[in-house]
């Protein structure tokens, strides 16, 4: 799941600038589930903004609307009908959702109320941990299901680096387990330790362009003429 957290009220107010009439658009998808941008969080955000602005003389009209997902045009009927009445949209979707709304309404400032943090899993209600950086070159099959890109401080494809502490933590932060120490333990337990000696070519992280995925059965449908 995509995990996000809310920006500070000061930052949000800074983004809103002189806008006086704002549509606060909630998302019923991932940011709703991670308790950052669903209908309830939109209500709380509006209450906080309203209280803060009122303390400083008022003058901000907020309208709340939560749609099922901000990354799929199927769900935009109500939002599309409303946006023309507002000076800006404050979105509580992830970065993809914010951009989707911005592309749909290019004449309007579409502002993010959240910081999109990572793809991760649930540790508890309201507690999430990063597990995937969507690098597009998954090596989990050879690393015992532990992602070195996410969990190694240096994102090493070939590790460990030599900075593993005796108790199996990382030289960068002694409270963080060394990803490659964990990978070693996991592969050893599975009887697949030989995989750790496999040399993987260095990943070229720079100069990445926008990625796109079309699943195999749909390639003909979306082929450019």
């Amino acid at each position, binding site marked *: 799941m995509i995990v996000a957290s809310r920006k500070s009220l000061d930052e949000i107010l800074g983004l809103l600038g002189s806008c006086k009439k704002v549509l606060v658009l909630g998302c019923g998808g991932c940011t709703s589930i991670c308790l950052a941008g669903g209908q309830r969080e939109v209500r709380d955000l509006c209450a906080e903004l309203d209280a803060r602005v009122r303390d400083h003389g008022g003058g901000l009209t907020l309208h709340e609307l939560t749609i099922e997902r901000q990354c799929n045009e199927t769900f935009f009927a109500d939002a599309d009908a409303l946006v023309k009445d507002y000076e800006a949209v404050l979105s509580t979707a992830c970065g993809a959702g914010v951009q989707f709304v911005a592309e749909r309404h290019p004449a309007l400032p579409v502002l993010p109320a959240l910081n999109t943090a990572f793809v991760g899993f649930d540790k508890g*209600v309201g507690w999430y941990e990063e597990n995937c950086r969507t690098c597009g070159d998954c090596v989990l099959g050879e690393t015992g299901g532990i992602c070195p890109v996410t969990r190694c401080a240096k994102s090493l494809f070939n590790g460990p680096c030599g900075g593993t502490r005796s108790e199996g933590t990382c030289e960068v932060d002694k409270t963080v387990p060394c990803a490659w120490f964990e990978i070693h333990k996991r592969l050893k337990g599975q009887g697949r330790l030989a995989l750790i000696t496999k040399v993987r070519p260095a990943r070229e992280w720079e100069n990445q362009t926008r990625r796109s995925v079309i699943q195999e059965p749909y390639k003909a449908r979306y082929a450019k003429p």
Partner: protein
Amino acid sequence: MSEIQNPPVDRGQIERALARHKDRMKLYLSHCMHCTLCAESCFMYMSRDKDPQYMPSYKVINSVGVLYRKGPGIGRDDLQKMKGIVWRNCVLCTRCYCPVGVDVPAMIAFARGVLRSQGIHPDFDEQGAMESWL
């Protein structure tokens, strides 16, 4: 239950929402031929021993269909019942198929929007997980 916990339905708001989407929603409802072809395109239906409550047609008839049949006179109990149908029985994966082009995801999203306008929506915290509709 107190009125704060269970406020009356805002009939005007429901009426406006129904009117705004009336042409499209009524067209979809009238075009459903009850052919059941949508059923097997729904992974929730297939993974729940073909329980008819998970058929896409069942879900729209018992949500959007009920909304238009009862109109603004609909009660909060009806809406609460609908909550399970449109959130628990459907994840809005948008993969359902209708041979005549009924846009099932748009219908479910519309029903969810009406429920949201009345403050009825799932919560994903501990309290939400304890709710009986799940």
